[in-house]
């Protein structure tokens, strides 16, 4: 893509186009091929306002697991284009945390090209100020890709009424024997829960932090960089509450 996208492009519908223009033209996406039977893991920490684009082809019976923490810069975007071959498995655990005027996006296209592949995407966003957090996630299942099992779990927590969360899990299914679960919820912290924690002695910021920590907990479970990702996420949450 050489032409700067506009907001009419679905994949850039909520993007900060001005910020995007400053980064344009983007370098070519990183291409990753996971050979049949292989295992691929990757941790992406977006903490400086950059755009990460990955194309991943996962071979027969292979697995790929990505953990993403999207927290930095005015505009940060992580774009994943994943193709699954027979019996392959893809896992994404992503957290984006933004405040101020930040615009953070995770955009995925997961194509089940062949039968028996599984994919799971868990995305949690915490947004404060006038920040915008977006997840656009398309799961495409080809005609032959029977016994596809895919799951998308998308949740966002708004700390201020002025923050925005966009979430669009999308399914395009041409096979007839598939399981494609998707769930999406946007909410705010339970005021009664916050009061309960405060009544036991936690200061308001600490009570919020504890509840937010619980909200994002689990996303990085099992990641090779779990400790680092969790501590960076907590630090960022601490800045927002």
């Amino acid at each position, binding site marked *: 893509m050489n032409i700067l996208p506009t907001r009419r492009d679905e994949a850039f519908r909520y993007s900060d186009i001005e910020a995007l223009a400053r980064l344009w033209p983007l370098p070519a996406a990183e291409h990753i091929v996971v050979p049949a039977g292989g295992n691929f893991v990757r941790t992406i920490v977006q903490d400086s306002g950059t755009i990460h684009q990955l194309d991943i082809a996962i071979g027969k019976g292979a697995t790929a697991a990505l953990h993403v923490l999207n927290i930095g810069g005015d505009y940060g975007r992580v774009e994943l284009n994943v193709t699954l071959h027979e019996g392959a498995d893809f896992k994404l655990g992503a957290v984006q945390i933004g405040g101020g005027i930040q615009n953070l996006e995770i955009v995925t296209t997961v194509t089940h090209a062949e039968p028996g592949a599984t994919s799971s995407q868990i995305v949690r966003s915490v947004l404060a100020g006038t920040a915008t957090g977006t997840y656009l996630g398309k799961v495409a299942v080809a005609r032959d890709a029977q016994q596809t099992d895919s799951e998308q779990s998308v949740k966002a927590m708004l700390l201020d009424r002025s923050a925005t969360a966009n979430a669009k899990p999308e399914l395009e299914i041409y096979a007839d024997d598939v399981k494609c679960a998707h769930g999406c919820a946007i909410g705010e912290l*339970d*005021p*009664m*829960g916050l*009061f*309960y*924690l*405060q*009544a*036991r*002695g*936690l*200061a*308001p910021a*600490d*009570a919020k932090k*504890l*509840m937010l*920590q*619980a*909200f994002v*907990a*689990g996303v990085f479970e099992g990641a090779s960089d779990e400790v680092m990702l969790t501590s960076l996420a907590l630090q960022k949450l601490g800045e927002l509450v």
Partner: protein
Amino acid sequence: MLQITNLHANVGDKPILKGLTLSLNAGEIHAIMGPNGAGKSTLGYVLSGRPGYEVTEGSVTFNGEDLLGMEPHERAAAGLFLGFQYPVEIPGVSNVQFLREALNAQRKHRGEPPLSGGEFLKVAREQAGALGMDMDMLKRPVNVGFSGGEKKRNEMVQMGIIDPALAILDETDSGLDIDALRVVGDGINRIMRRPDKAVLLITHYQRLLDYVKPDFVHVLADGRITRTGGAELALELERDGYKELAA
């Protein structure tokens, strides 16, 4: 210890407390009884500082300090504990982690050193054991999947760990079977029946008072204390109902 004077409070625009005056000294257990909608739970929430409960008149001092000027967590650090009528479920937050953070936040506020993980677990194990609660339950997310009785038991475990000077227990007896009622009653006596502590028991029924004998019983009706007596008043209420006495 606690001095409530001519307290008026609104929830939204609706006046609920209308001139409530009550005084608790150290070493005393007071029971507040009254019909539905009299303002019993509102009193508990106002004293603990729940947002949305607005004091429009009157004063409350706690050990000489202005209680109403403090944030909820400051009231906790000052020694006030509210046992919730409906303990809140908080998914993902473990009891142990939450209580340790809460206790250490209170200690920090009072200028005391924090408890280490080991020290805290020792206290937690003692309190859970005394209330017949499994340590595994204490490691689970706060109140999630707990039965009504387990939630109330958990409140008492929390009270034991936090060890407050003043406990306001809002219908801690509701939802308890007879055995659990005895365990909770024994817990209140063990933790709070001390010369330097006080308890305000908010309840509908006499039965908890069989286990926790109050020094004073007050009738709260239409936002005011309408009658005060000794433990025998609760029995009288049980027999004659509120209508008779509130009038």
